């Protein structure tokens, strides 16, 4: 029933229009790259260079050695040396430091006498996440340093040692997790936005009436409009993947072809969703806003990109199943970092086939109703 002549006539027209519309071109090609770079640099869950102040009331060789150990760890950046304990509170209040390490008088003396020496770490708890991590790092550095002091000149074999290995993201760099995730989030938003304009534009400019008076079918219009954007979407996926590897040093361990096939499924669904929104809204401004609303926050918050789905409350976890990027996120992270294949991503692939079918069906059904 589908005529390829009519299908390609629609696709060709859509491409010609796109080529002459700088805003759509920017949306199609510049925005994904820009977003990737922006978010890629801005979002980081690594805690490094914690602004740290030291109140050294001991002023001994030992206390200086401890401070050096702290600095050498790379997690702390020493911003101030305080003279009096009265300086601590104002400094934390104005955010001059996040952590203050207080070395009390008699620290070296206690160490020399074999007594347990006390230290105080005061942390700004207003960012609970960073505070916990900062305390953890402090604890680790101090522990390592104290065992070195205790063993000075001797050697001791600890009865048990745990040899931890981190797989897939050896440096535990959050960037490695963020960049592949971003590819999924960005493509969801861009794809829906791209097609949200196409049907609304025809209604707004009155061209829909002429289109409807020709023998072209709804499916031909929807598919014809989808094809060029599918091509653009795939180019965007390639571009952001290359950028992720070259600019952000994210490993790419899986099969690029598999990524393309799964991207194709995901994009079809997202583009269909955009077209559905376009058919509902009938105005370009409203359609863009709806597309943004329907994709941006839900994808960012509920896809598992920012927050782990397992730790969400049951209601949100249930909703997250409706967020298509949830499945594509598993795909991009899996292919980039773990190098897994279809044997692992099969479920995701099936769910994305369902999403693609639903997206297309919604677009065709809604479009059909409005033309009659």
């Amino acid at each position, binding site marked *: 029933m589908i005529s390829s*002549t009519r299908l390609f*006539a629609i696709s060709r027209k859509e491409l010609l229009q796109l080529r002459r519309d700088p805003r759509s071109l920017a949306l199609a090609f510049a925005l994904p790259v820009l977003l990737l770079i922006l978010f890629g640099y801005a979002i980081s869950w690594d805690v490094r260079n914690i602004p740290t102040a030291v109140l050294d009331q001991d002023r001994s060789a030992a206390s200086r050695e401890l401070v050096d150990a702290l600095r050498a760890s790379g997690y702390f950046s020493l911003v101030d040396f305080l003279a009096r304990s009265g300086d601590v509170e104002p400094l934390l209040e104005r955010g001059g430091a996040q952590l203050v390490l207080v070395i009390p008088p008699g620290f070296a003396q206690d160490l020399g006498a074999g007594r347990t020496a006390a230290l105080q770490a005061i942390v700004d708890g207003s960012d609970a996440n960073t505070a916990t991590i900062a305390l953890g790092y402090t604890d680790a550095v101090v522990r390592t340093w104290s065992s070195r002091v205790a063993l000075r000149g001797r050697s001791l074999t600890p009865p048990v040692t745990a040899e931890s290995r981190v797989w897939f993201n050896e440096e535990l760099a959050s960037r490695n997790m963020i960049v592949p995730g971003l590819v999924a989030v960005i493509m969801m938003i861009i794809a829906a936005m791209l097609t949200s304009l196409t049907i609304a534009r025809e209604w707004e*400019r009155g*061209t829909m*009436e*002429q289109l409807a008076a020709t*023998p072209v*079918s709804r499916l031909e219009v929807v598919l014809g409009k989808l094809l060029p954007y599918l091509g653009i979407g795939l180019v965007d996926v390639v571009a952001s993947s290359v950028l992720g590897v070259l600019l952000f040093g994210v490993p790419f361990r899986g099969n690029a072809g598999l990524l393309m096939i799964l991207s194709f499924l995901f994009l079809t669904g997202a583009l269909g969703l955009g077209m559905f929104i376009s058919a509902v809204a009938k105005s370009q401004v409203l359609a863009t806003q709806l597309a943004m609303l329907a994709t941006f926050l839900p994808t960012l918050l509920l896809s598992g990109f920012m927050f782990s789905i397992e730790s969400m409350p049951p209601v949100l976890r249930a909703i997250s199943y409706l967020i298509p990027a949830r499945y594509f996120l598993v795909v991009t992270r899996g292919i980039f970092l773990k190098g897994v294949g279809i044997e692992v991503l099969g479920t995701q692939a099936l769910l994305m086939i369902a999403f693609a079918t639903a997206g297309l069906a919604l677009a065709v059904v809604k479009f059909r109703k409005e033309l009659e």
Partner: protein
Amino acid sequence: MSETAVEVEELTKVFGDFKAVDGVSFAVAEREVFGFLGPNGAGKTTTIKMLTGLLAPTSGRGSVAGLDIRRQSREIKRHIGYMSQLFSLYADLTVEENIAFFSGLYGVPRERRAQRRDWVLEMAGLGRQRRRATGELSLGWKQRLALGCAVLHEPPILFLDEPTSGVDPISRRGFWDLIYALAAGGTTVFVTTHYMEEAEYCHRLALMNRGKLIALDTPAHLRETLREPLLEIRVSDATRAVEALEGAPGVAQVGLFGRALHAALREGEDVEAARSRIPSLLAEKGIAVEDIEPIQPSLEDVFVALVEKTGGAVVD
């Protein structure tokens, strides 16, 4: 032996509680230039949309090119050309790109495309504008291109919904030459218009008001239906004169026609008596009559009279 190109019976379209088209029946013969007249809101566009498969009728039946408008709307679209009231080609595509696009949609065979394109360019006089963006063309040219795009597939029936609204008289004249050329080539043309001089070009006219078909005949016959004698009156203050004459004895209807008044007398009224009575009546109100002459009714007079008789135009 002329076959029927379009036929409708009791065609009705209801939007909510508004009857846009109310039990309309007519038939259009092949090769006919069929004019569809009526004030705004009369239901002309709604009728055309039902015939072209853009709207489903609420009740009644109809056929276009022998195909049922309810069940075969998709098939109908292959056999008709349609040009909508508002310009609806793609302004950001060039003339040639628009032609190529509609050639594709209408399934013009590949080997015929260049020929059809050149034919449209020549017919519309757009040969030198072929690479210009369609949005940059003047309205007259846009309309000719829209007509060209609607007949790329050489449809036997062409529907034109107010194709010349807003176009200057010279371009309008040229546009009608194209319509006549198409009709001479065997195309049935179904056209709605506001312009009376265009209505004169049609073989037959259907007049609609308030969703109903109120007259259907040739322009010559329609003119004869107006039996009431008609006077053209030139006065110093036409607006006040209309008020003064409304409901005056022997006067059936008054209307403004440009700077003059047209007064239709009641049937059987003596024209000469009215010619002397009306000026004195107006003089009482301080309106001077410059000239008062009996005239032949124009199509516009017929049109106005018929619309008045059927409840006047819908004012919205």
